């Protein structure tokens, strides 16, 4: 009786083991099939770097700025130049600029209401200030 019970138990365990293996293999296969089906039905969900903008994505996957589309900070076409020479040049040129016809129209620019709080300055040789803000 005891032997019979033991054999029965071992046989059941073997059967259970086989069943588990089949279930495991089946679930792996089904997962693959479902993944493939989902990838073809919802291409926006794939992890491949796509150029299209379809589908929801996290910020990590697809940031695409319209104005700056590259993913590296871009250096300028030309490096800044030392301003000291420019300052000297500006000072040298200033008298010539005073007689330029284009500048005679400056007072006319002061009349629009939009500029009332910001007086127009003629030929601003002073540099614009860039600092922390």
């Amino acid at each position: 009786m005891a032997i019979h019970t033991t054999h029965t138990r071992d046989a059941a365990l073997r059967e259970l083991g086989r069943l588990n293996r089949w279930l495991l293999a089946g679930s792996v296969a089904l997962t693959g099939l479902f993944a493939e089906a989902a990838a073809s039905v919802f291409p926006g969900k794939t992890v491949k770097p796509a150029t299209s903008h379809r589908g929801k994505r996290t910020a990590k996957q697809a940031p695409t700025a319209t104005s700056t589309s590259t993913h590296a900070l871009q250096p300028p076409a030309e490096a800044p130049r030392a301003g000291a020479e420019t300052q000297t040049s500006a000072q040298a040129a200033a008298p010539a600029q005073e007689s330029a016809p284009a500048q005679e129209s400056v007072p006319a620019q002061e009349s629009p209401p939009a500029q009332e709080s910001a007086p127009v300055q003629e030929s601003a040789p002073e540099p614009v200030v860039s600092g922390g803000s």
Partner: protein
Amino acid sequence: MPASPRTARPPLQSAVWEAVWEALGTSVVLRVRDPASLAPARATVEGELSAIDLACSRFRADSELSRLNARAGRSTQVGSLLMEALEVAVRAAECSDGDVDPTLGRSLELAGYDRDFRLLAPATGQPEAPAAIMARVRAGWRELALDRASRSVRVPAGVKLDLGASAKAWAADRAAAAAAAVAGCGVLVSLGGDIATSGSAPDGGWRIRVTDDHRGRPSAPGQTVSIRSGGLATSSTAVRRWRHDGHTMHHIIDPRTGAPVRTSWRTVSVAATTCTDANVAATAALVRGLPAAAWLAELGLPARLLDREGNVTAVGGWPAEAAAEALAA
């Protein structure tokens, strides 16, 4: 009548016309090369800034960003302008390896920056901010989900976005481009010292004084350079400082600690193809600390890094300072 030698000589520095006003909580400087274009250029810049303020301000209850933050954890539709601002912010995070992070709104609030800067208590010599703000709530920019096709955004629950690290410079780029298109001439737009140019530059280029504070005078300690195109931006821990919980705070937050960054640099100026890129690089350099000089050089970005002792490091082709400027720095 013979031409006078003065007028016969080509001008070395073209004339420019300027308007100055306040917007986005900071100063706006507009310079144009054609006097007749100043008024329409200004109107265009004002329109751009007004639209961006309404879309991106963290301090306006009626802004799109405030509504988006209030709906954190849920998918929310946004307008095209805010969507673009968010994409720019995410790209900034990517390009800086997360040093410039748009999900730091809570950290800024915990540091006391929870209202317009002008309403904060000024710093008066309090000790530096704590090394970390432990109660911070931050998911990180990678968790921000943008769906451009449907213009929907999902901010992670508990997170608040702050676009201050990228939106101002981006606004300068947009405003300069729009103004130049309307004006048909070269344009410079400065928003609190973040400078964007568009169109042809004056002879000799656009002259810029880089210094600690954008409110400084053109004679403030620093260096004068000129650019012919692109943008130039400066970030500094020496300005926008306030008092909170007995400490001096500033607005450059280290994403790793959630606290104002403790950096070896005081002020960093960078030139790039856009003001946005220049600003991202300058802010990231402050967060990155000493290795930033090599990072900027590797990217080929001309930059001037001023340390806390006043020593200048120039990389990427940034011009050398005149002796007098170096002493004044």
